[in-house]
């Protein structure tokens, strides 16, 4: 399935959006059937809209701004929905400590876990060179005297070559950028002191590629590393992240343990997560069984969950907030937009009562007048909605580098391609909702009543 | 100069410019109106009678010439001064009544009084007197939409006289009324003149209306062509197209 079809189906996933799409399709169909009069109708609609440019303009700008907010909100919801919806094929799973947050496992676990802990003949074995990755977290400050957002760095310590193979969000990079990142990762293998940092983080600590820094760790106390910044992640979800070769950290812990009388407190707790890529759900269940039945993982116990489920757990704290975004903020704004359109259309119908009566005298049918008024609202809504989502897409993605509203471990949200027609759909939907009553009113205008009032 | 005159117009000229074209509406007009006089302004469409009325009432400024009303020269006043002056000295009656539709008869009549330094009690007294005068004491709280055309015009008249102005100007006051209502309104104007000694200047193209006045000024192309007592006014057929003044 192509990505367009996929996003189309995702779009129709919500009953509200499905309803809107069906309604607009019916409307479109009607216009197509009446192709003979379509030009005439469109011209009338256009003339009516240009009659009071101030009003049309105000309505359009208001719609534009409201669609902007809704697009931002829906982007966040869309993305979180995407990362928390379970897939049945080719998905990732996370192995972590069973009970505790943060998950801290002995590094010795990684060998077996990276293969999915096969024990017997016939067990599923993950190809750990391709489909597994380990994460160890190393947090540090570049200024030992303080720890502020202008001085802290947070690293995913992993096998550098796994970055482009296993990490999410590679679609946010161009093929050329991926190639560049791969090149840096190869360098990181050769010289384990080399790291890649996100654009925003680099900016925040006011450092540039090529600089060497001395770090003071706050989670690995007394394991202070020296790094060299080899590359900068382009605009992406990795804006705030850092990537380090895991060997660098592990070697430093070993060195510490050799020198000091007491082992480092995090010695047996340095492995935080193991990621596996699994082909399908039954295999996930198989691996789950293998890991839970293995006698090797008891202190501490471990668990495996799909990435979607893991993310969903982390988002738990935000559930009411997200619920509010979805069911209060966005609907309120949509309703406001429908009302603004309704006000504009009601005014214009009210001003045109006599004219509409004349049209009726000439022979226009009530439903033709209905569609004329609906058409005006829908045209304004659709045009400003489309313009807004297009504008939002380019403004936010290209100029601001995404919506920087950190939720859980997602620092930034990029407007998806789907959003390009959310605006159109919102415009059509709110235009329709807003003009329903005014247009019904318009087609019920009685000729006699209007003329008696005028004279 | 007549010591009894309330309105003195000297050498009044009014022109409008449209593009490069200069349209003379009134040309070197001179006239006087006596205190307590009921004057009708007649003339075909475009003769300048409404413009003259607007100038005397302080709604417009002349291009040249002098207008004196009472002891004031209004032709040199600024717009703000004119507004304040109008409130105290001029009452207006319009062809289409021009009542505010959301306000009751009482409230419409009260409107001009709000601009004067009166207490609520004083206002109430004056409004009730004015509405009593026009015979609408029983319609105080009706809105214009609930009144007939004649009744609405009577509210208009009450509003015009409520602040006790020296001058009442009326632009086609019967133009939108059936003949019976028109007759009543004209009768009321005559009463105003007689009992309250109001000076009334009325623009009309209806000879019957003009006949109720004491004196008729006939304008044509911005010039005064007749100035005669109403009694000696001979009915002339209206020129074609002269439906509105």
């Amino acid at each position, binding site marked *: 399935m192509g990505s367009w079809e996929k996003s189309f189906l995702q779009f129709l996933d919500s009953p509200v959006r499905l309803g809107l799409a069906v309604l607009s399709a019916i409307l479109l169909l009607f216009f197509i059937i009446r192709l003979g009069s379509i030009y005439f109708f469109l011209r009338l609609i256009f003339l009516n809209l240009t009659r009071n440019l101030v009003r049309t303009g105000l309505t359009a*700008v208001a719609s534009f701004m409201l669609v902007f907010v809704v697009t931002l909100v829906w982007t966040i919801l869309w993305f979180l929905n995407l990362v928390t919806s379970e897939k049945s094929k080719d998905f990732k799973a996370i192995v972590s400590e069973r009970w505790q947050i943060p998950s801290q496992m002995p590094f010795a676990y990684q060998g077996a876990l990276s293969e999915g802990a096969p024990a017997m003949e016939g067990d599923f074995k993950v190809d750990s060179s391709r489909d597994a990755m380990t994460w160890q977290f190393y947090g540090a400050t570049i200024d030992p005297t303080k720890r502020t957002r202008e001085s802290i760095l947070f690293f995913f310590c992993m096998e550098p070559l796994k970055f482009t193979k296993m990490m999410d969000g590679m679609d946010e990079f161009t093929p050329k950028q991926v190639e560049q990142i791969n090149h840096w990762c190869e360098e990181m293998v050769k010289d384990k002191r080399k790291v890649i940092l996100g654009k925003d983080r680099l900016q925040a600590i006011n450092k540039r590629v090529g600089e060497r820094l001395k770090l003071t760790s*706050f989670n690995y106390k007394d394991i202070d590393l020296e790094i060299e910044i080899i590359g900068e992640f382009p605009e992406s979800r990795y804006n705030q992240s850092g990537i380090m070769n895991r060997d660098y950290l592990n070697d430093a812990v070993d060195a510490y343990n050799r020198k000091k009388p007491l082992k480092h407190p995090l010695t047996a707790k340095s492995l935080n997560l193991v990621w596996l890529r699994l082909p399908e759900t039954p295999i996930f269940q198989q691996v789950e069984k293998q890991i839970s039945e293995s006698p090797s993982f008891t202190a501490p116990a471990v668990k495996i969950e799909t990435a979607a489920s893991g993310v969903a757990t982390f988002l738990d704290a935000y559930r*009411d907030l997200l619920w509010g975004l979805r069911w209060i903020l966005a609907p309120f704004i949509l309703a*406001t937009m429908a009302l603004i359109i309704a006000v504009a259309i009601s005014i214009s119908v009210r001003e045109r009562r006599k004219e509409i009566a004349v049209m009726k005298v000439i022979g226009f049918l009530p439903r033709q007048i209905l569609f004329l008024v609906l058409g005006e609202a829908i045209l304004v809504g659709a045009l400003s909605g489309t313009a807004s989502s297009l504008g939002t897409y380019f403004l936010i993605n290209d100029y601001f580098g995404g919506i920087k509203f950190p939720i859980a471990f997602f620092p930034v949200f990029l407007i998806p391609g789907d959003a390009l027609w959310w605006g159109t759909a919102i415009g059509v939907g709110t235009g329709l909702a807003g003009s329903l009553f005014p247009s019904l009113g318009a087609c019920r205008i009685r000729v006699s009543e209007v003329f008696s009032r005028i004279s | 100069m007549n010591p009894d005159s309330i309105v003195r117009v000297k050498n009044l000229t009014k022109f409008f410019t449209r593009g490069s074209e200069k349209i003379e509406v009134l040309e070197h007009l001179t006239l006087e109106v006596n205190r307590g006089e009921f004057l009708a302004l007649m003339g075909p469409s475009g003769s300048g009678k409404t413009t003259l009325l607007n100038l005397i009432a302080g709604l417009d400024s002349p291009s040249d010439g002098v207008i004196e009303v009472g002891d004031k020269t209004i032709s040199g006043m600024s717009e703000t001064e004119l507004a304040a002056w109008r409130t105290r000295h001029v009452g207006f009656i319009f062809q289409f009544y021009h009542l505010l539709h*959301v306000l009751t008869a009482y409230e419409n009549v009260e409107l001009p009084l709000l601009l004067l330094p009166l207490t609520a009690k004083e206002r109430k007294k004056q409004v009730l007197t004015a509405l009593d005068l026009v015979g609408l004491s029983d319609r105080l709280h009706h809105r214009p939409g609930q009144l007939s055309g004649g009744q609405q015009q009577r509210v208009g008249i009450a509003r015009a006289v409520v602040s006790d102005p020296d001058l009442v100007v009326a632009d086609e006051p019967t133009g939108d009324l059936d003949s019976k209502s028109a007759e009543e309104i004209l009768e009321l104007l005559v009463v105003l003149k007689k009992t309250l000694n109001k000076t009334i200047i009325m623009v009309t193209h209806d000879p019957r209306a003009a006949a109720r006045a004491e004196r008729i000024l006939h304008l044509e192309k911005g010039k005064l062509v007749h100035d005669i007592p109403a009694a000696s006014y001979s009915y002339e057929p209206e020129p074609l197209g002269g439906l509105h003044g």
Partner: protein
Amino acid sequence: MDLVTTLAIYFAAVIAGFILLAFLGKVPLKYSLRNLIVRWPISLMTGLAFTLVIGLLMVMLAFVNGMYRLTGSSGYPDNVLVLSDGATDEVFSHLGFRDVSEIEFHPSVQRDEKGKPLASWETYVIVNQPIPSHARKDGRKRRFIQVRGILDPERSGQVHRLKLKSGQWFTTGEGGGGVREVTLHEPGKEPRTIGAGEVVMGLGIARELGPDYRKESLEPGDVFSLGDRYWVVAGLLDSHDSTFNSEIWAKWKTVAERFGKETFSTVVLKTVSPEEAQRAAKDLVQNYKKAAVQAVVETEYYDSLNNTNQQFLIAIGFVAAIVAIGGIFGIMNTMFAAISQRVNDIGVLRILGFAPWQILISFFLEALLLAFIGGVAGCLAGSFADGFTASSIMSSGTGGGKSIMLRLTVDLKMMLGGLLFSLAMGALGGFLPAIAAMRVKPLESLR
């Protein structure tokens, strides 16, 4: 001057200004009001747009307000909170037994009648717990539960000034204590007697766990499972509006063993006064050399968690500003239409002697009136949000964070702020049309 007073003064000033303008404008307010009524469908829709905008603003602010109230009421100014140096969060803090036992004898720490220091020894862990399938919502299968191992529950209650709402504190004691024999009834299994760990918990988490056992909320005596063992609710904390509302407190030793954290994450010291607390915090940071610790007055600690709130406030401000544009343009349309419909009225008023600025005031006040009515309705609608509970998270922005349960709180300052916001929208949207009304030429309008 606090925010409520400031807002009240602004509000009073605006109302006074409104009355003054109405007085100077002379055009009766009822004229404006009745026109709004006559064109009720359009007025209603415009007002409703205002109601929606203000209502939305209220709900969003109620959320943040609830968070601020929570952080404001979670700490005490005379308590000092001690973490290990470098810990961004209690989760990452490790204090040794020896350190804590020395710290609690700091001279600033208040003693009880038996001479024991009022210090709360705590180990904080976050437990990842599966949700039974029948209690799952929105597809989430697991939840994080905050568990606090407590050495002496009554003493900790004293330090945090927490009382029990029902039940009793869990028992402590050498060897035994903290465990109660309960009979477990599991579906499809014979009832059996087991030793369950005793806990006290906040009302919020009791309500959160209730549905797992098909109850609205857990009550004292209820048994539940967490992290591979069974626990029994000994008591419920009267923990409204504090972060402890979403915590489970259990015997320290059990927590340390079960969840593998044998160090203390936190020790909270009660001093005699806020000044003493300041002194103690400073002294511990500067002079306690055996282990590097960070000591802060508890209220300051919670203030530092307000970073999330500030982020939310910025987001709310952003959304409100943009949505306000909708309201402003809506009322502009309405007022422009009102004027084009009433040029006749304007002409008459001008001829009767009303000055242009009086016409401006009349239409400006009409817009304000509409905004005010819509705003009042919005405040009322928004106030329905008051009292609802919601989960959220708060953090200092440098890693870590606390899951909390807050109560949406609508208060006077929000109402006043909402009304002022509404009036500001009305003023911005009403001004241009009012200028247009002022410029209507009386003679032309009547032609």
